[in-house]
């Protein structure tokens, strides 16, 4: 029996991918789990393994082609006796549940659950896509005949301006639309050609990563009620402590980031609403049991957010090692979906590049993001005297729908206290009194 393997929904909300490299040829024999194709998705570059053993009967798509989720990738002649899931020989339609149902194949299964937190902000894209689908499926007001005419003429009735009562699309509007669009085509095409050499605009198609970033940023801004707090903290003590630790360390040296992660992890335990998300549809708050800290990282392709899992249970050195590993992977674009999912809180250390205060965008649907600016030498007042100090600016945004101002202030006080006096990290590590 022949089995058509469709490009699976390997992460929530993933819509399409680009074929980078084929690993199989027509007629080639493959085993279940063998890599079929290398795909660039809006999250990562990843290998798609075969869910079946058998012989490749056909490959769909050439290198560089964009494949929608649910579209056929390969047709496999499966070995006798092996259960087949489908024998459909027609190219699959989008939104196939069959592909999603394909659990149990090791790697696919893993990829399938991956997906969240890849970029800042990211995660549950599924929600957004569901909304888009709903918008599209909402019936435009039109007369039955107008619908039939639009269908027959291949006109998207959603694009037709209705002149009937309440904007109803009538048969006349369809007639007008057709002649209208023809006219537009004639007039506008030469205009565009004329305009191009004069203005010298360059039209660059969005990369998958840029599309995702754009979508996620917009979704965050549209959904979360952003509220930001900024503060400064004198960190001379932290600077000294870090230097002293690094003097003793072999291998990876500590940056300030592990200290910040540590302080935040400790504070999140005391302020769980900052490690939560609002599930508005179901009228509840989801408190996350794990503390998984996403780290916004700048790459040539765009922003990525690998996630340090269970940050509260890791030592400063372990955190430092993990950060270094992620930084390498991000640079070489080797972050896996697994590296980027399940974040519960995000830190952006924009100060490593530049900037003092910022208004960071929440990594939706998380409820908070913590931003660190560049540490500067500044005059501070200590014991009634102006003295030189090391001042770290911080900027934090929260989703005011579930996080109140008082809660942020208390959280920040606690975090900043630990950063001002890093020995407190030892005191609070593992739990408070």
């Amino acid at each position, binding site marked *: 029996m022949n089995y058509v393997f469709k490009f699976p929904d390997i992460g929530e909300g993933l819509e399409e991918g680009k074929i980078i490299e084929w690993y199989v040829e027509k007629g080639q024999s493959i085993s279940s789990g063998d890599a079929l194709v290398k795909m660039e998705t809006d999250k990562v570059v990843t290998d798609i393994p075969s869910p079946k053993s058998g012989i490749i009967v056909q490959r769909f798509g050439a290198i560089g082609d964009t494949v929608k989720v649910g579209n056929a990738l390969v047709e496999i002649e499966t070995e006798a006796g092996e259960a087949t899931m489908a024998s459909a020989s027609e190219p699959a339609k989008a939104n196939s549940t069959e592909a999603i149902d394909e659990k149990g194949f090791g790697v696919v299964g893993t990829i399938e659950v991956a997906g969240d937190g890849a970029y800042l902000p990211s995660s549950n894209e599924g929600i957004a896509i569901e909304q888009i689908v709903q918008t599209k499926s909402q019936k435009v007001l039109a007369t*039955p005949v107008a619908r039939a005419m639009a269908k027959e003429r291949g006109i998207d009735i959603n694009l037709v301006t209705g*002149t009937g009562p309440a904007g109803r699309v*009538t*048969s006349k509007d369809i007639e007008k639309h057709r002649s209208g669009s023809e006219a537009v085509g004639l007039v506008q095409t030469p205009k565009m050609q004329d305009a191009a050499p004069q203005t010298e605009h360059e039209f660059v198609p969005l990369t998958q990563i840029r599309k995702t970033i754009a979508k996620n940023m917009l979704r965050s801004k549209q959904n979360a009620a952003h509220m930001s707090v900024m503060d400064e903290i004198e960190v001379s003590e932290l600077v000294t402590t870090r230097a002293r630790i690094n003097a003793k360390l072999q291998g990876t040296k500590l940056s300030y980031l592990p200290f910040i992660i540590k302080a935040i992890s400790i504070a999140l335990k005391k302020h769980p609403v900052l490690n939560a998300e609002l599930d508005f549809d179901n009228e509840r708050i989801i408190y996350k049991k794990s503390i998984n800290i996403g780290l916004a990282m700048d790459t040539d392709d765009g922003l990525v957010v690998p996630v340090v899992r269970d940050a509260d249970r890791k030592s400063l050195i372990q955190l430092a090692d993990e950060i270094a590993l992620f930084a390498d992977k991000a640079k070489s674009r080797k972050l896996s979906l697994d590296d980027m999912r399940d974040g519960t809180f995000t830190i952006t250390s924009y100060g490593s590049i530049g900037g003092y205060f910022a208004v960071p965008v929440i990594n939706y649907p998380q409820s908070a993001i913590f931003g660190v600016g560049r540490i500067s030498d500044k005059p501070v007042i200590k014991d009634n005297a102006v003295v030189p100090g090391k001042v770290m600016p911080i900027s934090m945004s929260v989703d005011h729908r579930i996080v109140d101002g008082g809660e942020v202030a208390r959280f920040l006080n606690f975090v900043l206290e630990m950063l001002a006096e890093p020995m407190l990290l030892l005191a609070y590590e593992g739990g408070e009194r």
Partner: protein
Amino acid sequence: MNYDLVIIGSGPAGYVAAIKAGQTGLKTLVIDRKYIGGMCLNWGCIPTKSILESAKLFKRIKHGASEFGISGFDPDGLVFDWAQAVKRSKSIVQKLGRGIEYLWKKNGVEYLQAEARIVSPTEVEADNRIISAKNIIIATGSKPRQQNSFSDAMELEDFFSLEQLPEKPLLFGRGAIILEFAQFFSMLGKKPIIVSTGLPLIPKLDDYLEAYINKRLKKDKISIIPQEELGTIDGKLYHKDQPLDYDRAINCNLREAVLPDMNIELELRDGYIKTDEHYRSSVPGIYAAGDVNGISYLAHAASAQGVAIINHINGVVSEPQTNYPINIYSDPEIAQLGLTEAELKAAGREYQIKEMGLNANGKAMTEGASEGFIRLLFETKYRQVLGVQIVAANATDLISEAGVLLELEGTVYDLARTVHAHPTIAEVFMDVSQEGLD
């Protein structure tokens, strides 16, 4: 006296326009020389329907009651009390007239009972004063054309003042009213004759309905005599060597415009005020709505035009209405909407017609009203319904469903998938549309 709008005539065009004008904040004055409501309310639509109902009930009791299991009276001893029938109709008219006055008052519309004369494009003279108006609507209606075949013929306007009904009325003219009047007399056991001034008897009706009417009149033993077949011998009217046997002639002639007195010159078309698609006359600021513009003789058409004019004055763009149902309150009623078969043919459209009788419909049978049919005319490509014709006891109400269907460009598919309650006569709509599916 300065007004945004002066409306001359208070019939269905004038009074509806006035209410709409008042609602949209125009300072409005209505002038009518007679009664509020015009012909429609005072001696047209409403009173004729009232006396027709009296006649229908009379006939039903006399000829149908025993079949329904009602006895204990002598059908031959039944008496039609014309004076009471008129009294009933007048009380309805009064109530409706008061309703209009109330609506005018509520919306700030002023009313003046007087003869009006247009003295300039912005001035009307009435009640010995000059009234200034930014806009004028002429809504003076129409009346049956004068005739000279019958010197003693009475006008419809005077019909309700008759003390006694004629036994052998001669109805002279054409149109829906002649059919209604003929059946009115026939139902009361009188012997009406129709002298038709032209054929078809009812203009604008589909040939199929016209044929049905002829059949029905034959059954009612009402003869139609074409006017040209009349001859005169010794000053007496003869038809095929037979002297015309009638005791009262009633003028039911096709109608002609009633033009207001005016000092200005308005362009006319066949005696009616010529208007454009916004019902503007040839003089800026002066509109004409209703019968007087010759577009339609239907009260609901007049009202729709009145509203369209107010929209135009207010700069509101509204698509002109074209689908006016033609309703005839005959026995059974007749209703038509949209295109006729002849119009479909002339337009070169591919069409199909499906018809279904009421004789298998449960509700119609229980009511003893199974005479009639529903007829759908639809184009074959999308199966859009373009015309609907109904003969049924309640056809004039049934047609409203077709009105929505045509307004929304509905197809036989939409009609077929619309659940119609059982038992209803409207079910026939669903049944006939199912015949029209592929």
